[in-house]
């Protein structure tokens, strides 16, 4: 197989991108956001994605997150070609296997932190009682015990970021996709969040793919992928901090 970043025998290839391209618009206005990405991420990996602005990181994350489909090439999730799935099937993939930490948090306004965290469990049809206790656990794990009833507007940027992480984690997803999860945090808060993600990765074996601009954050991951102009420019193994 012509994939990169193979971690050797025994690891299960969870995610594979084979010559993925993404073109926005057509003709003269065509914008080539991704120009042939080959990528393999195994189960349990912690991968950092770096690269200058506009290099295609978010586009790649959207495709990884089954929110978008490649213009050409194939994206295989657990061997399933996501591009061939229907809208509804992709929604079910997101529901059952993926957790998102969006760049802008995307919390529901006017809705309490706890209810925000409960949201993915509602779509998994978890009964109300179990839903509540799991959401409370997740809130506690991100250090927001006591802030459950506050709405996003009553929380600081860092707290909102942690609510977003709790919401992504509460389902114990197979893959966690985080687009600049520490983008708006100071270094102390950033370190806390990264320790949390490292714990999730190591204790629960959750695969993490994280976009960041900060090399100090990237070192928490075991592997760093660098994007440039819609292609993977380089790749390196880190020792990992944790």
């Amino acid at each position, binding site marked *: 197989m012509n994939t990169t970043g193979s971690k050797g025998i025994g690891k299960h290839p969870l995610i594979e991108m084979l010559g993925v391209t993404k073109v926005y618009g057509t003709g003269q206005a065509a914008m080539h956001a991704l120009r042939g990405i080959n990528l393999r991420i195994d189960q349990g990996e912690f991968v950092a994605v770096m690269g200058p602005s506009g290099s295609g990181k978010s586009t790649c994350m*959207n495709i990884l*997150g089954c929110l978008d489909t490649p213009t050409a090439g194939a994206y295989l999730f657990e061997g399933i070609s996501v591009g061939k799935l229907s809208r509804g099937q992709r*929604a079910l993939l997101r*529901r059952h296997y993926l957790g*998102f930490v*969006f760049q802008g948090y995307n919390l529901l306004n*006017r809705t309490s932190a706890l209810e925000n965290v409960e949201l993915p469990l509602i*779509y998994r049809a978890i009964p109300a009682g179990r839903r509540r206790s799991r959401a409370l656990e997740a809130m506690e794990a991100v250090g927001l015990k006591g802030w459950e009833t506050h709405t996003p507007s009553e929380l600081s940027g860092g707290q909102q970021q942690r609510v977003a992480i709790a919401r992504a984690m509460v389902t114990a997803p197979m893959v966690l996709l985080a687009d600049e999860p520490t983008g708006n945090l100071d270094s102390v808060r950033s370190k806390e969040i990264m320790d949390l993600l490292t714990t999730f990765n190591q204790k629960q074996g959750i695969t993490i793919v994280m976009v960041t601009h900060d090399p100090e954050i990237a070192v928490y991951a075991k592997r760093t992928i660098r994007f440039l102009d819609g292609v993977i420019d380089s790749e390196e193994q880190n020792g990992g901090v944790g």
Partner: protein
Amino acid sequence: MLWETVLLALREIRRNVMRSSLTVLGIVIGVAAVITMVTLGGGATAQVTSDIAKMGTNLLQVRPGQLHRGPGGTRSTANMFKVDDAEAIAREISGVAAVAPVASEMLQAIYGNANWSTTVTGSTNGFLQVRNWTLDSGRQFSEGELRAGKTVCILGSTVRKELFGAQDPLGTTVRLRNISFKVIGVLISKGQSSFGTDQDDFVLIPLRTLQRRIAGNIDVSRIYISAQDGISTNKVQEDIERLMRERRRISLGKDDDFHVRDMEELVSTLTGTTRVLTALLGAVAAVSLIVGGIGIMNIMLVSVTERTREIGTRLAIGALERDVLMQFLVEAVVLSSFGGLFGILLGLASAAAGARFLAVPFVLNIGIVVIAFLFSAAVGVVFGYFPARQAARLDPIEALRHE
């Protein structure tokens, strides 16, 4: 899951109480209008029916002249009846319970300083029977009074009230065209008829007295006949027509110069009319419901635009199109059902007030209440569907990028 969605919708509605109330105002008014119209219409129908029952449904009326349909009524160029005609009907026609020959004049009734313009009806005790009149106090005419044409009278309750106030009129005398009439009875009030006339505004005196002392002729302007219970008024009507043609010597092929009217016919015409009216008003009100639905659709579309990011988030997290569709549809239905509920309460209240004002009975029609509620919920489904589909079809990435 549906229950969750309903709770979610309730919360969403509560968040914006002011806008939600304005949104459903159209539905509230529409439903209230439907309920008011139909309830009042039902009350009016019940009123007409009971009025006519009071009048006696087995009542027939014979009048001279041909019947001209529509307003204007009869032209009495034809010969008046005589008392003999009434007696012949009583004698020769089977199934007749009572017969009352009637003649009347508009006169001034005077008692002391009080005077009152009223109808003076000359008839027999049969009149009380066929028109279902009951004595409040006093007595009917005696045979002697009727035969001799005595100056005695029985008062309708309006005349009694206008002339005597709280005083007991029995035994006193009332002056009609300078003749003193002794009051021997007072009738129980029937109130207004559905046609808006005061049924209690008359004085009853013996027919012979009216003919001799007031009218100065021996004419009878109409004859009331009540059929016995269980006897078809149609059959009696035909018999009367045959008898009268014979008595008035109308040769074969010539038109009647009199006509017989059946009250039952009148009932069905009148209730039919009020029913058509009710249906029409109801239809007008239903149109306002549709307008209310468009109001809901409008606000739901605004809401979808405002909540694009929320929808994007839900879709990204794993909501299916169906989930988002349901969310917005349930919200529209909950909204419109609330509107329906408030409309029903408002409609019943205004119908109750209207019924009092128009002096018709308040007849609660559970059927229309249920229909109005279901209709308002249906309005939510129909007019909520388009915005809900709009929301469900959003592209998650586009929606998340939306500002």
